[in-house]
């Protein structure tokens, strides 16, 4: 991207920023103590200051810096806001806009030079303000600002005057003269064998008519020889025409492509609208017909005016005397035609391309649409989806509908169309994030240079798509993050080599999708956060109490607090303490999360996580009580049947992982229903999985997200609502919030992940079962599976306490009946009795063993400190195989040591089975 394009972008964005600043200024005028509005203004100027520096507009950056100084005093309440000051600031805003416009005008040097006086005038006023003088009094500023606005008017007229000047300048050079025609001029000469090749000039005309509009045309028949020489199978026709491509942005190559099929049978010359006059002359001279005659043809069809023709033929650079008629060859032979063929496109091309790049720098096959219109379309599509679902629901109830095949086909067709429309209108809003990323390259490049650092930006996931509005909204936060990374994170070259790092610092920018959300990581390999300094500053600012003890993570998060900057020097780039709080606010407005990980001397990683909220989502319909809920399908991992013996366990075990459960009926206080079967929907967000317990599953559904009213805006766990086919309202679950909610509870309860905890050996998870009022716990590490009501094969020649043989995955293994073995009163098992399949690894292989237990409860986690050694409690009966004792529901809980159990003489045989 060139600097000019970069500036265009800067001006576009900064103009928006200025608009925000203006709104805030006006707001501030009404409510002078509105601190938030002041912050908005400060941030706006700060952003402009930073960005202007990046695009080499130092004078804007300087100017903004001066404004910022005043604003800083206002923030620190060393200055009082009054309306003259507001006026001055508004003036500055206008002036900034003028500076922007001038910087991208056709003649930036001159235009900006015209603004210099105004800049110094405003700067003088600032010094006055800072010195406590002038605008504080009511009288002086008014004439000044008036004078200023007059200057503005003059300045605004400047560019247009400049344009006129440019034009007159070009008119002076005759060779650069342009024809006035606003249409394309096409010149066609068919080869003699055109008919034999199946090309008919008449059909070509018909084709061109379908591609655009033939404004005027002249058929050239002068190449036709006399009857005797005329070969009726040869083609002697040609056309000169004025063609309207009916598309402003059409390029020469598009017109050329119209002739692709006949190019071998026809010489085509194309002149773009208002091409240079000399190209027309060139055309006239190249064509086999009489130049003067052809010129008249061109005048006749309106390509050239008579004046232009005369002028053109006079300036004709070649010495060919236009007045003397060139004798036409009676029979145009292949020889005379040959050189023309070679010249077909070459002569006009350089001029054309120059011309098009000059007048329309970016010819793109894209259309700019107001975002509002697109939103409106999406809204309507949303309604369409709902209406379609309604029709479907109504028809489904109609018995005749199912017999009427034609109707059914039509309805299905419409449904498919609706879905297609939905998808394509959604995809209209999707753009690749790469474009936004690429703008950051320049930022990195320029910033690192101005700071004397070597930094390389490494981008991955540039093709990740997300909603257009999102791209715009995350751009500012990204800029701030990168700026911070370069300014604070990456060390100077000397520092880096001193620390044994490569001289070149790296910033990694990575984007990826994760179950319906977007994750963007900005990481650097710099010095990491200086926690001491952050803490010190935070204490100085009163953000943290003087003697507070904070974890590293908590300190790291302090940088998201407003007004905290660790940099001692206030630079162009960053350091005024705006930045990270802006990042956080912006992301929060997108419902996003931001987290920061830092390691001293290793680098810092900021991870942004935000939902890919779109207007319409694919949802998963579930019931809970009488209500219907929609879970965004993207976050659904799987569905499982909810089988448990325990009343409402907090966790279930799903494939060697504990899955924390959230009961929707309890969460939303739905009346409890006796459902024979409940389901667990496994959802995930941010790498964390939880199970939602629901009463029923209805299947997939296209949900149009309707925002909840302001009253319900802050409702946790609900993202919005949608209307079902039957007119009912269903709430859309905010999976991120639910995962978060459970995550918080979990902190006190159970680790998220068994394996991690096992390695740390501090927390263990146990499966709890009971036999005759005694509770036992088994380390979950051993548990392979839990089976209910499984049929056991008989086990001949085995002791009585072996309940039978169980076959699982082609392995047969004995099942030890613990009730029997513990020889408590023999009692029939109730139906709830279950078999816990244990898996043990010994030297040779993995061995399986079944334990038949009376009552399965749930999985809990116990800290080592919660487990007492058996001796202290004086347990005698089973202490051979009790590893420890804890408490469960006010009962003592015996922790089984299976290995010890199997060392008992009567069970030793099980070790080798």
């Amino acid at each position, binding site marked *: 991207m060139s600097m000019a394009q970069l500036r265009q972008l800067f001006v576009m964005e900064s103009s928006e920023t200025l608009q925000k600043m203006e709104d805030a200024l006006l707001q501030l005028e009404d409510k002078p103590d509105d601190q938030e509005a002041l912050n908005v203004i400060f941030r706006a100027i700060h952003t402009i200051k930073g960005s202007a520096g990046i695009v080499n507009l130092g004078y804007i950056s300087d100017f903004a810096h001066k404004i910022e100084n005043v604003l800083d005093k206002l923030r620190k309440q060393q200055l009082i806001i009054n309306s003259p000051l507001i006026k001055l600031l508004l003036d500055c805003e206008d002036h900034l806009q003028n500076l922007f416009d001038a910087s991208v005008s056709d003649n930036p040097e001159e235009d900006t030079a015209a603004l210099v006086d105004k800049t110094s005038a405003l700067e003088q006023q600032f010094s006055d303000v800072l010195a406590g003088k002038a605008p504080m009094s009511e009288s002086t500023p008014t004439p000044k600002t008036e004078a200023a606005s007059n200057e503005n008017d003059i300045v605004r007229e400047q560019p247009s005057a400049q344009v006129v000047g440019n034009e007159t300048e070009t008119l002076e050079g005759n060779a650069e003269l342009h024809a006035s025609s606003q249409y394309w001029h096409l010149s066609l000469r068919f080869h003699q064998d*055109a*008919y034999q090749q199946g090309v*008919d*000039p*008449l*059909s070509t*005309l*018909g084709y061109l*008519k379908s591609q655009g509009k033939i404004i*005027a*045309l*002249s*058929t050239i*028949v002068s190449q*036709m020889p*006399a*009857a005797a020489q*005329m070969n*009726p*199978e040869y*083609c*002697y*026709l040609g*056309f000169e025409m004025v063609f309207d491509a009916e598309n402003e942005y059409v390029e020469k190559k598009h017109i050329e492509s119209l002739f692709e099929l006949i190019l071998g049978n026809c010489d085509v010359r194309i002149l773009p609208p208002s091409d240079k006059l000399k190209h027309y002359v060139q055309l006239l001279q190249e064509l086999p017909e009489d130049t003067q005659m052809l010129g008249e043809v061109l005048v006749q069809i309106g390509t050239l005016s008579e004046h232009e023709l005369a002028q053109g033929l006079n300036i004709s650079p070649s010495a060919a005397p236009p007045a003397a008629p060139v004798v036409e060859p009676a029979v145009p032979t292949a020889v005379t035609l040959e050189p023309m063929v070679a010249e077909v496109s070459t002569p006009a091309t350089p001029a054309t391309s120059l011309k098009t790049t000059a007048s329309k720098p970016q010819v793109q096959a894209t259309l700019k649409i107001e975002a509002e219109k697109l939103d409106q379309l999406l809204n309507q599509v949303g309604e369409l989806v709902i209406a379609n679902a309604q029709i479907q629901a109504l028809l489904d109830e109609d018995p005749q509908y199912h017999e009427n095949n034609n109707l059914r086909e039509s309805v299905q067709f419409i449904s498919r169309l609706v879905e297609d429309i939905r998808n394509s209108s959604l995809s209209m809003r999707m753009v690749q994030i790469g474009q936004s990323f690429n703008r950051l390259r320049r930022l990195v490049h320029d910033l690192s240079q101005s700071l004397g650092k070597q930094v390389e930006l490494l981008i991955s996931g540039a093709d990740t798509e997300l909603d257009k509005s999102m791209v715009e909204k995350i751009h500012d936060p990204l800029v701030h993050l990168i700026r911070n990374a370069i300014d604070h994170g990456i060390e100077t070259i000397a520092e880096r080599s001193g620390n044994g790092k490569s001289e070149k610092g790296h910033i990694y920018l990575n984007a990826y999708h994760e179950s319906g959300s977007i994750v963007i990581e900005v990481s650097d390999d710099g010095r990491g956060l200086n926690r001491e300094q952050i803490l010190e500053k935070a204490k100085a600012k009163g953000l943290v109490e003087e003697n507070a003890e904070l974890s590293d993570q908590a300190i790291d998060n302090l940088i998201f607090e407003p007004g905290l900057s660790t940099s001692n020097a206030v630079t162009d780039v960053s350091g005024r303490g705006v930045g990270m709080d802006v990042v956080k606010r912006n992301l929060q407005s997108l419902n996003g999360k931001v987290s920061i990980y830092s390691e001293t001397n290793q680098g810092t990683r900021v991870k942004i996580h935000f939902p890919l909220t779109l207007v319409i989502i694919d949802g998963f319909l579930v019931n809970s009580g009488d209500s219907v809920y929609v879970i965004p399908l993207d976050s659904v991992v799987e569905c499982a049947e909810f089988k448990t013996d325990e009343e409402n366990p907090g966790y279930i075990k799903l494939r060697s992982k504990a899955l924390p459960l959230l009961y929707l009926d309890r969460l939303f206080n739905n009346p409890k229903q006796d459902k024979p079967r409940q389901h667990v929907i496994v959802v995930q967000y941010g790498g964390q999985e939880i199970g939602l317990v629901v009463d029923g599953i209805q299947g997939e559904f296209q949900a149009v997200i309707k925002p909840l009213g302001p009253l319900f805006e802050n409702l946790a766990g609900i993202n919005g609502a949608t209307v079902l086919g039957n007119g009912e309202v269903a709430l859309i679950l905010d999976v991120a919030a639910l995962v978060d909610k459970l995550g918080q509870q979990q902190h006190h309860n159970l680790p998220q992940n068994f394996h991690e905890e096992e390695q740390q050996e501090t927390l263990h998870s146990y499966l709890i079962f009971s036999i005759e009022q005694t509770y036992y716990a088994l380390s979950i590490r051993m548990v392979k599976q839990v089976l209910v009501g499984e049929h056991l094969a008989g086990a001949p020649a085995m002791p009585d306490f072996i309940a039978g043989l169980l076959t699982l995955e082609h392995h047969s293994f004995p099942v030890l009946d613990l009730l029997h073995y513990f020889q408590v009163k023999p009692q029939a098992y109730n139906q709830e009795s279950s078999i816990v399949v244990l898996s043990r690894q010994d030297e040779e292989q993995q061995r399986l063993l079944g334990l038949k237990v009376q009552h399965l409860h749930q999985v809990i986690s116990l800290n080592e400190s919660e487990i007492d050694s058996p001796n202290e409690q004086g347990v005698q009966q089973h202490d051979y195989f009790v590893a420890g004792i804890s408490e469960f529901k006010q009962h003592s809980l015996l922790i089984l040591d299976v290995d010890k159990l199997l060392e008992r003489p009567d069970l030793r045989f099980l070790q080798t089975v």
Partner: protein
Amino acid sequence: MQIHPDEQQANSYHLSGELCFNHISESKKQLLALLENSAEYLHLHLAEITDIDGAGLQILILLKNSAATDNKRLTLSNDNPIFLAILEACQLQTFFADSLVSTPEASA
């Protein structure tokens, strides 16, 4: 293309069928022969022509050019929509303007 002399009027012929590239050499010969055989005036009824292509148009142009060279007068009936559409498309109405008539000129 077939040629039938008009039964009521001399030097007047009805053309029918296609005036197209396929038999264009034959058509050229036939039509030029008609022109040669006409003393001063030739009228062609085009109403029954079912198709004309670029090659066919060329022959009519040639015929008109030749008539002019030979100082003869050629008129064409202006009642064939296909032909009229082609003239419109190619902006050749002016070229044929003096030849298009609704009925053969009685002068001959």
